[in-house]
């Protein structure tokens, strides 16, 4: 099975890439921009859902990792003008190192203490931009100049190119994470999540597994930050407030914690619901004070509904629907509802 599945994942990823490429040509420029936004969100949320759903560690600080990736990108493009692909790799590497540092501390913490420590990271780290205005540009931030490559011609829309770049990174990330989750590393994460003592007795290095999960999660967030930097064109501390970290976790939970399809669902909700709700609110002539709060209300309503109806997130609902039609979902990733929840049963034997 395992030997067969990697080519299948790759084939599916390629098919998706073709679909996105076609969509990006057919849709208007703003929809292309939204595809890029969704891809960025997917990249970050996929990393977080691995950390929380698979290794059982919560993080309220992944927005700070995105900030590290974004500032790395801005500084490298600004001062060294490296090609973006190199910058992306360096941003991921630097954020991974930051993730390792946080992970070492996090490996000793559990539950609310871990949430508190990562929350501190999410709140405090972006403030460094104010402490070193000469390097990070304080609240004005750093401008990032990103253009379409010359071979595409001058008339190629920038937003389409951004959609392509971001989607490519998101797809590669999903393929890599899918393989990682299936590998020995992924199994050790699940073992640690389900029972640390049993995992340790079985020979899993618990601390190393937990730190590694943080490294992977941070690297994903770093790449997402790098993409965000080129797409928005500005890296400023206001963009990395604590609400960003919470939005990432919300997306992972709405989509279905611990599942990569869930990361995609959650990202779609986070990106599309506010825009859609704004359009609806403004087109119905509501007063400003009401209309401006509708997106927030819609976001809350979606969160409550999903949690009430499908505690395992949208992916849980999808699986339930597939089950109704007799399509087995046994081959998908086993659900990990919440970090501390015990699995209902083992996978197919």
């Amino acid at each position: 099975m395992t030997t067969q599945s990697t080519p299948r994942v790759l084939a599916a990823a390629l098919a998706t890439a073709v679909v996105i490429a076609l969509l990006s040509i057919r849709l208007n420029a703003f929809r292309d921009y939204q595809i890029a936004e969704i891809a960025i969100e997917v990249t970050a949320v996929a990393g977080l859902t691995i950390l929380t759903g698979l290794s059982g560690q919560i993080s309220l600080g992944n927005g700070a990792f995105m900030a590290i990736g974004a500032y790395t990108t801005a500084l490298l493009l600004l001062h060294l003008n490296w090609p973006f692909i190199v910058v992306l790799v360096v941003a991921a590497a630097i954020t991974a190192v930051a993730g390792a540092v946080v992970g070492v501390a996090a490996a000793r913490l559990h539950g609310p203490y871990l949430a508190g420590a990562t929350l501190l990271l999410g709140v405090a780290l972006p403030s460094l931009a104010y402490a070193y205005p000469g390097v990070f540009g304080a609240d004005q931030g750093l401008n990032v100049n990103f253009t379409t490559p010359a071979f595409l011609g001058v008339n190629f829309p920038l937003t389409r190119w951004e959609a392509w770049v971001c989607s490519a990174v998101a797809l590669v990330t999903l393929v890599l994470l899918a393989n990682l989750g299936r590998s020995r590393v992924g199994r050790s994460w699940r073992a640690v999540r389900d029972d640390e003592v049993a995992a340790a007795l079985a020979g899993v290095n618990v601390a190393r597994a937990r730190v590694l999960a943080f490294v992977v999660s941070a690297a994903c967030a770093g790449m997402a930050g790098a993409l965000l930097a080129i797409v928005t064109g500005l890296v400023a501390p206001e963009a990395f407030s604590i609400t960003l970290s919470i939005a990432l976790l919300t997306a992972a939970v709405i989509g279905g914690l611990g599942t990569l399809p869930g990361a995609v669902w959650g990202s779609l909700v986070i990106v599309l619901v506010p825009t859609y709700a704004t359009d609806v609110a403004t087109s119905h002539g509501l007063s400003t004070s009401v209309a401006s709060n509708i997106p927030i209300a819609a976001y809350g309503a979606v969160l409550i509904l999903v949690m009430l109806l499908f505690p395992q997130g949208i992916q849980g609902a999808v699986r339930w629907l597939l089950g109704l039609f007799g399509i087995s979902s046994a081959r998908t990733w086993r659900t990990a509802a919440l970090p501390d929840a015990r699995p209902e049963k083992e996978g197919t034997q």
Partner: protein
Amino acid sequence: MKRSLPLRAPAIAVVAAAALAVAACSSGSSSSPSSGASATTGASSGASSSSSAALTASAPGITPTTITIGSHQPLTGPAAPGYSEIAPASAAYFAYVNAHGGVYGRDIDYKYLDDAYNPTQTATVVRQLVLQDNVYAIFDGLGTPTHLAVESFLNAQKVPDVFVASGCDCWDQPTTDPETFGWQLDYIREGKILGQYVAKHFAGKKIGYFYQDDEFGMDGVKGLDDEIPKSDVVSRQSYVPTNVNVAPAVAALRAAGAQVVISFSIPAFTALLKLTSLKLGFSPQLVVSNVGSDPITLSGLLESFAKQGGATVNGNALTNGIITDGYAPSVGDTSNSWTAFFKKVHDQYDAKAPFDGNVLYGMAVAYTFVQAMLKAGRNPTRADLVSAINSGLAQGPVVAPYAYSSTDHDGVTGAYIGVINNGVLTQQGSVLTTDTSPTGAIATYTGTEPQAPASGIPSP
């Protein structure tokens, strides 16, 4: 042994489905940019204005009956209190104009979206306005970090980016950002005008600075330092808007013996400065920048902060004697023709909001936009609006002339000094004008301030 296999094809299938969902969403709302707009309102009175060329869809966002413009505003989030009143006030003035013949018969359709003062959201909503809703121009986008996130995008797209709601000097870059124009008095000019007043009226006194640690505060300090002798400044304290504990800064000002404290702060931090000083028994003469000194906002904040701390204060009493500056007429000055006119529009179209400095600001900047649109001509392109402003705008509801030219994209060039008394700002002395250079002189403005037109509509 087969284990449960995690993701594979299903995961990828979901991505494909997701992408399709985006496509589905788009089909609903991304149709022809102008068809929806033209149906919304019928400009009936267009025929009554001059009957020269027929009205055409001369630019994106312009139809024979409407002009659609967009903006990003903090309607929710920490920057919303006060600032969220600005866009509805502009919309109220546009509603007045629409009801009185529109701009060459076209109605202005003002679409402002919430960015919660987050640059990432600004980038999204402005792209939505430009790429999907095809607005003619971005008008009065609020905030420095937020607007910086879209300045280069708007200039690359050649979308007029007029009258940014921020006093950052960074909007004045006609060579690199020819589409972008500031409007309000920039913080450097403001710092110079306040600095000169303090240097003259408090000569020899010990002076302390309290400023926000960003371009707003630092531009202000730059202007102050141009006018106040360095040796008189005994302490320079900054704050970051995310940390409400200003006690160490106030204690340092007190320890340095500051007799005059000049504050470049937003309203919440002006209130914190005042209350913390009170607690520490420190009562210097306060001089506050325009942004942080709206008497109505400030008085409300003082009372609510004190209440949170278990004390009762009289907000108006605490603001008494604060020295500040103004570049628009004071809302308390009912004899001013502009204030009286905007009050009338407010009462008719925006009565739910308090008539404060934010509302007056929103209407005054909207008036300036209508003025520029009328100057741009009957069937303007986007470039026509930019060149209309580049050729200069006549002074309107503000107290000093605009700097606009093809080489200068700053707005208002001067202000008056005022003192707050019983919640009302009273002008002291004449209007002063200056430039942003360290050596540029500060001159008394000798021109006469125009009266508000009886119709309330600017002449082209």
